[in-house]
């Protein structure tokens, strides 16, 4: 067992976990943050994507102890209080989800994608960058639409901030 302490969604948390415990299981079972999902055993599906120190990470590829001292954001911490993150709002507006199981990972991966492409996104780039996230419901059509729309909103918000 190891003692693990980290920041999750802005709060300091700590707990004990077996050394073999994956970060995704620590989040779900120790912290009760069940928005992060497990959809496969091989780090292929991306349902478990979270942000670790500002970067998208598949939380099934990381041991909980490796995350000790890190700052983690999960789907539960993405919205600003009652205000949805533009990516969350875009997924709803463009019907980018059906069963909702892959959605948290999609949204976390997509926000990271926008952040990594300050120059903006096009459809081909979005599709290529979604390689690590599998959805079985939507055929990706509306997910791609949602990400492109959110990318516009996020960059105009960024510009507003710069202007202010």
């Amino acid at each position, binding site marked *: 067992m190891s003692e693990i302490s980290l920041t999750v969604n802005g709060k300091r948390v700590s707990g004990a976990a077996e050394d073999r415990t994956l970060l995704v299981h620590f989040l779900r079972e120790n912290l009760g943050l069940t928005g992060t999902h497990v959809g496969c*055993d*091989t780090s292929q599906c991306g349902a478990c994507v979270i942000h670790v120190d500002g970067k998208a990470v598949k939380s099934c590829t990381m041991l909980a102890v490796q995350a000790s001292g890190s700052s983690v954001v999960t789907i539960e911490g993405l919205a600003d209080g009652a205000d949805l993150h533009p990516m969350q709002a875009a997924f709803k507006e463009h019907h980018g989800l059906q*069963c909702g199981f892959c959605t948290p990972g999609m949204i976390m991966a997509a926000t990271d994608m926008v952040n990594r492409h300050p120059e903006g996104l096009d459809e081909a780039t979005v599709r290529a960058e979604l390689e690590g996230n599998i959805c079985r*419901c939507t055929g*990706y*059509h509306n997910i791609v639409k949602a990400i492109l729309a959110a990318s516009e909103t996020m960059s105009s918000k960024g510009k507003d901030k710069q202007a202010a």
Partner: protein
Amino acid sequence: MGIEGVGARVARKEDKRFITGAGRYVDDMVVPGMKHAAFVRSPHAHAEIKKIDVKKAQAMPGVIGVLTGKELKADGIGNIICGWMIHSKDGSPMKMGAWSPLAFDRVRYVGDAVVVVIAETKGQARDAAEAVDISYEELKAVVDAPKALERSAPQIHPEADGNLIFDWELGDSAATNAAIKAAAHITRMKIVNNRLVPNAMEPRAALGHYDKAEDHYTCWTTSQNPHLARLVMSAFYNVAPENKLRVIAPDVGGGFGSKIYIYPEEIVCLWASKKTGVPVKWVADRTESFLTDAHGRDHVSTVEMAFDKDNRITGLKVDTIANLGAYMSLFSSCVPTYLYATLLSGQYDIPAIHANVRAVYTNTAPVDAYRGAGRPEATYLLERTMETAARELGVSPAELRRKNFITSFPHQTPVIMNYDAGDYAASLDAAMAAADYAGFAQRKADAASRGKLRGIGMSCYIEACGLAPSAAVGSLGAGVGLWESAEVRVNAAGTIEVLTGSHSHGQGHETTFAQLVNQRFGVPIDSVSIVHGDTDKVQMGMGTYGSRSGAVGMSAVAKALDKVEAKAKKIAAHLLEADEGDIVIENGALKVAGTDKQVPWFQMALAAYTAHNLPGGMEPGLKETSFYDPSNFTFPAGCYVCEVEIDPETGVTEVVQFVAADDFGNIINPMIVEGQVHGGVAQGIGQALLEGTRYDASGQLLTASYMDYAMPRADDLPSFKVSTSNTPCPGNPLGIKGCGEAGAIGSPPAVINAITDAIGITDIAMPASPSTVWAAIRATKH
């Protein structure tokens, strides 16, 4: 249409919880004292169990119980059954082999559950499962259905001689043979429909909780139809009487058919909870899902299509071998029979059809309904054959189809179905226009100048949804009725709860069902709650599959709304001192038509519950129920056009354009309908290009992870061009046909027709992976 009414593109109510991580799936459930199960599964495709030694496992840290099939049998838990009786053409009933939830004498496929371990943590349960020692004596296995019918094949179940479950036929053999004999042209093909793994993104899971104080069981399960799960587990598996068993299907992460059935794991978790005295949770990992979720398709067929000298189809003869895997899953028998052969007329006027279907046991995972269920197999067979016929006859594929379209309705086919309405030429025209079919030759030439092979293919599908009426499906062998229930509760302050037996696992019922209520009463959709997925809340229902929730489930809601409306109008008429025939409902109020007299909806509701001033003899309250049994199937139909570009150097196929023109009848929410088509088409393109389930000859599943089974990813697919036409369905009060499966039904033949067109060959196996396509191109050069 109001902004939230029928036909409006309303954003989904349920999205809020999913996009914020607040959805609640079975694996998110925690019950005090809950422990974890791990299953020990057969590593062999076919073997005798000689000895099971659990002593070492029992002594492992955290272990609470290690339970076997013998103990399960001793407690009277029943075998898993198939609920649809099929009789062979000689009149004998299908030969169903025994399927114990935990195998105790023989295992029949890799993944067959043998022992369950219950431990404090998931990790401890898995560690102890590794320590269970089972001695097997391996037997010869067979994975291929035609081979399972050979004399030398191993016998899988004693009940099914030669592994033949049934040998069934439909249609007129003599008339069909005569048509073939007299034909001016016959197109003959061998058609293989590849085995698929459904792969809902949420793996299956079950949480069983036995409450000693109440002598009562609760089961949280990833089910598309919790009421059916309760009924079957109670009536057939002897888990608990219905009044002592509550089944809850909370948020469910996709189903596509694979979550219709009742699997060993939920039965075992409930039984083990009583046995060990603790709540027991099991969650599949992805490899367990690949091994044990019911697979789909896996047909091998031959077809002969006869034409007269004017290129009209005169007969169709089909012979199919359907692989049902190691055990008969719940609805496995109806998929290659009544959901398949009954659709072999397609959109065409075919005077004589005969189909023979042999269903076969093999040492593979059970096969059952997967998105489309029988209809994709029929459509693939028919539309590949039509395309090939057009090429052989030297006529346009579109015009050959058009010439043979059914144009007057109702139309009785030779294979049971009575098509009620449709306009197949409208869909064909719409698809060809959207695809710029006329401009294809130019695009092909452009592609050639870039060294690419470009092809175009189409598919005109018809399917049948909302299986019904119950008496008819009963006469065909169904063990259940296929109606749906609804209860509409108007609360005292006017908000509304709709309880439905349909179950949403991605379809958006919380929004579309509320739109229907909004349309009728003007109540905002935020004031309408849809309650589903819990046998303690909803009395009875048949669940969601076969694109039935709109046509059947919402029709039940509409019928209950009729009753609510009638009573509400009586109350309003009494309050307004008017004739109830003069009351209309508009903008959230009940009004006397042509006057300014009105009572707001909420005030009428309050009056129903205060009961201070109701019409004489009227009972207080406002709550109505409906059990709706449709009069016929519904018949969605459409035309899909696929255009591909192939790189001959690598064999990589790019879908450069995909057009879907569907007729779904009336539509409640176009945004959700389009989403259903997108998802279905993606699965169909997946079947055609990517997804192949491979067992080796010994029965090991080689494609048991996302490293090995190619799921469609975003960069495998284009954006789709979808449109609908709307010929209302005359068979239900809403005119809805159903849209959940069409995409998966219509798309595979369009893709393969495009690829064979591009390469200039007759056939190619699905999935047409780069290596398969590359080899096919090479073969044309030698």
